[in-house]
């Protein structure tokens, strides 16, 4: 039972009220993806965990859940990268430096960085998966000593679709970090690998007991990638994924993001394969 006084105090403030966020930088990364750097009122830090998300408000267009793609070690601002694919994201693409958006959050459970300390990392990013993973990669880069051998595998449909290409080159320069790239459909200038991201996994050097694999990508990718990782005998609870769902509140109420008894906005979006395995069927997407 909650103390009535505390309850009354909580009833005065609304978790539905967004904070004011000022856009201080934007950049088109591809034809469809736009990068936003956002400063909160009073330059306060969002204080998120890598892998968490915010609810972005544009008045007149309601809200949508968007992954945070900067690290909590980036102070005074945070980054979002948005694909123009729905009503709100379309409206968001029309905004630029100096415009204001509403922010609620951060919400959800991020990547288990505390558990990952000292471990090797295999980071697998398919398509837009690099967006939430950038928060983790940037965190790992700034706390490089806390982690072991780090490998990053990237996959995209075509070379044009790679996000954060310059940044990726910087990550590559660091000796400990390997970045392999692959494309489904190459163009003539492409010198890298061609094929699905799963084809990269057999070639990576993994010490399974000491490795966390972090996988984010389109829903269809997970089962194939996880299968390959399991072949490498990485334990179930050391395979980490992040799930995308429709969300309306971020508070574990509106019901849209539910997978069986779990609300993804609260228990996720990050899950271990160990947790995922017990879901009976609602994890599997069907594209209409």
């Amino acid at each position, binding site marked *: 039972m*909650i103390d009535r006084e505390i*309850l009354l105090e*909580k*009833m*005065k*403030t*609304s*978790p*539905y*009220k*967004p904070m*004011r966020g000022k856009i201080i930088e934007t950049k088109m990364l591809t034809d469809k993806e736009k990068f936003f750097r956002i400063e909160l009122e009073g330059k306060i830090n969002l204080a998120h965990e890598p892998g968490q998300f915010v609810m972005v408000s544009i*008045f*007149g*267009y*309601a*809200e*949508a859940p968007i992954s945070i793609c900067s690290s909590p070690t980036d102070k005074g601002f945070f980054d979002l990268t948005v*694909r123009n*694919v*729905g009503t709100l*994201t379309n409206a968001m693409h029309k905004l630029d430096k100096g415009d*204001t958006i*509403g922010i609620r959050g951060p919400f959800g459970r991020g990547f288990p960085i505390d558990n990952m300390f000292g471990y090797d990392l295999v980071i697998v990013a398919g398509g837009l998966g690099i967006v939430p993973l950038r928060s983790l990669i940037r965190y790992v880069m700034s706390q490089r000593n806390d982690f072991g051998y780090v490998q990053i595998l990237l996959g995209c449909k075509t070379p044009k679709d790679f996000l954060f290409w310059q940044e990726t080159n910087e990550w590559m320069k660091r000796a400990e970090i390997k970045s392999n790239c692959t494309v489904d459909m190459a163009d003539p200038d492409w010198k890298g690998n061609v094929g699905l991201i799963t084809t990269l996994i057999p070639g990576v050097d993994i010490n399974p007991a000491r490795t966390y694999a972090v996988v984010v990508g*389109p*829903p269809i990718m997970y089962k194939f990638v996880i299968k390959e990782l399991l072949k490498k005998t990485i334990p179930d609870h050391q395979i980490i994924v992040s799930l*995308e*769902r*429709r969300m*309306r*509140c971020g*508070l*574990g*109420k*509106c*019901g*849209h*993001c*539910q*997978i*069986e*008894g779990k609300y993804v906005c609260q228990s996720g979006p990050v899950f271990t394969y160990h947790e995922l395995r017990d879901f*009976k*069927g*609602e*994890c*599997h*997407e*069907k*594209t*209409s």
Partner: protein
Amino acid sequence: MKYAIIQKEGLSKWLEHLKSRARLYAPRKKENSFVFRPVRDISEVCLEYIPTILPPKKYYFPQKEKLLKFSVRPFKTAKAIDVFEEYILFGVHTCDIAGIQCMDVVFRDSPEDPNYLNRKDKMTIIGIECLNYCDKFANCASMGNHNPRGGYDLMLTDLGKSFIIHINSEKGEGLVTGLGYIREAKESEVSLLEQIREEKKKVFKEELGDALPVVYDAFDRGFNSKVWQNVGKRCVACGNCTAVCPTCYCFDVVDEMELSLNEGIRYRIWNYCQMDDFAKVAGGEDFRHGRDGRQKHRYYRKFKYSVDKYNRYFCTGCGRCTRTCMAQINLVDTVNALLNEGITYRTKRHKL
């Protein structure tokens, strides 16, 4: 005072009194059904009714509710509702009171929902006990909601010529004291109430084929059951079952702009897991495809997920989903079909 008595002749006087104290909502007839409505004319109040079309949730979790006011330029937000008014829900069945308790659990769960809590804070519940089944669709006895189990301020039980009122809160006591036509109950009247409860046992029998823990197990095992395909084939995805459910609370958030296109209001509106875009994301992936999957989800939210998350069954047994279904999907039949599958399964395993 724990129990009070009001003669039936005194009821309309009491209703007038309640009406003067706060906004009063009570059931009344509407064509062949019943609805909760604000009371204007006392004579319209009808206490012998089958569950109303919509449960009283429309008053504490409105179909369209203001969350906040906003302006685009300058970027500003403000409270949308300044004052929540006091109100009395009169003549609520015990199944609907159970529904309110379920909603309490959800919206009190951290992070708390201030809109709901503010409304709940202003609510007074005066219940009425059912002595007979409303109709053949209810399964309140299986859910244990046919008898009053708290969650109200006052509870009325029909003693023939009078009502005995169980006083369950200070707020409730304030509504019955100091009135000439309501007096404290005598011991004989309280024992009459006990007698009535005893009689009720002969009327109300568990409607589901087995006890709730067995039902839970059947759900635990029945995720891939053919029962869901069968239900899915018949379902027309109208969403009625979720709209009328006293424990369905899913919602959508929408913005509505003023003509100025600068100011507007953010609303939350009821949303239903039976709609085909309910779990669809902007990229086009649909995470709960098909009517079978969506109906299954609704049932699991009543008999399994809510038990896992809140340790509580979210079916109150009011029977509304069955009553309203255009495809005659019957909750009791569906659960029993699942239970029967369990029996086959158990026997088969036994033979092995």
